[in-house]
């Protein structure tokens, strides 16, 4: 069974530029999560989708971050404009259901903002 796919794996941008990350969850998983992991910290939830609807985006900095999952499968996370403090690994995870279910993580995208 294929795991969670993410691209790109690495991205370097200048501050104030925009960037987008893509995620394809495990087939059949209805719930998709985006996490931000700053070096030396645990992952922090940014947004959670159930199919194509947002369940929880309380920790998403909405002035610069946006995410969508239009067809209920793959998802895109965008940052516009990027700040230095956005440098982190962005992890996508998916789970079969909305409850306290096992989340499977993708390899992540390492973003460096200069």
């Amino acid at each position, binding site marked *: 069974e294929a795991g969670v796919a993410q691209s790109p794996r690495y991205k370097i941008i200048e501050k104030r530029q925009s960037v987008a990350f893509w995620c394809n969850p495990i087939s059949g998983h209805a719930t998709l999560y985006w996490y931000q992991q700053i070096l*030396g*910290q645990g992952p922090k939830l940014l947004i*959670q989708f159930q199919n194509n609807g947002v*369940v929880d985006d309380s920790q998403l900095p909405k002035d610069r971050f946006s995410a969508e999952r239009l067809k209920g499968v793959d998802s895109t996370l965008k940052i516009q404009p990027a700040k230095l403090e956005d440098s982190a690994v962005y992890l996508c995870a998916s789970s079969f259901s*909305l409850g*306290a279910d*096992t989340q*499977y993580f993708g390899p992540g995208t390492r973003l460096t903002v200069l």
Partner: protein
Amino acid sequence: QQPVQSPQAVILREGEDAVINCSSSKALYSVHWYRQKHGEAPVFLMILLKGGEQKGHDKISASFNEKKQQSSLYLTASQLSYSGTYFCGTSAYSGAGSYQLTFGKGTKLSVIP
């Protein structure tokens, strides 16, 4: 609120045992344990649901004391492959049928020959 993990770091020799603790101030529904190696994604180890159960596979097991809002991960007869950072994630109901997973800062485990 972020769960608190202890210790922050531990160094073991192969074959030694270790315990990693995770505690929360919130009422928990479940505790999830992950291991992350440098530059890789977190890998799921196990999930413990409310009910005080203990789970394990191979030489890694965990317990969940829901009254104390605490969980412990037990690694016995450690192997070099156990090296990595261990995260506990605690889930609590966040509304609309959803449970938000909040991760601790991690415990760095190094196993040396």
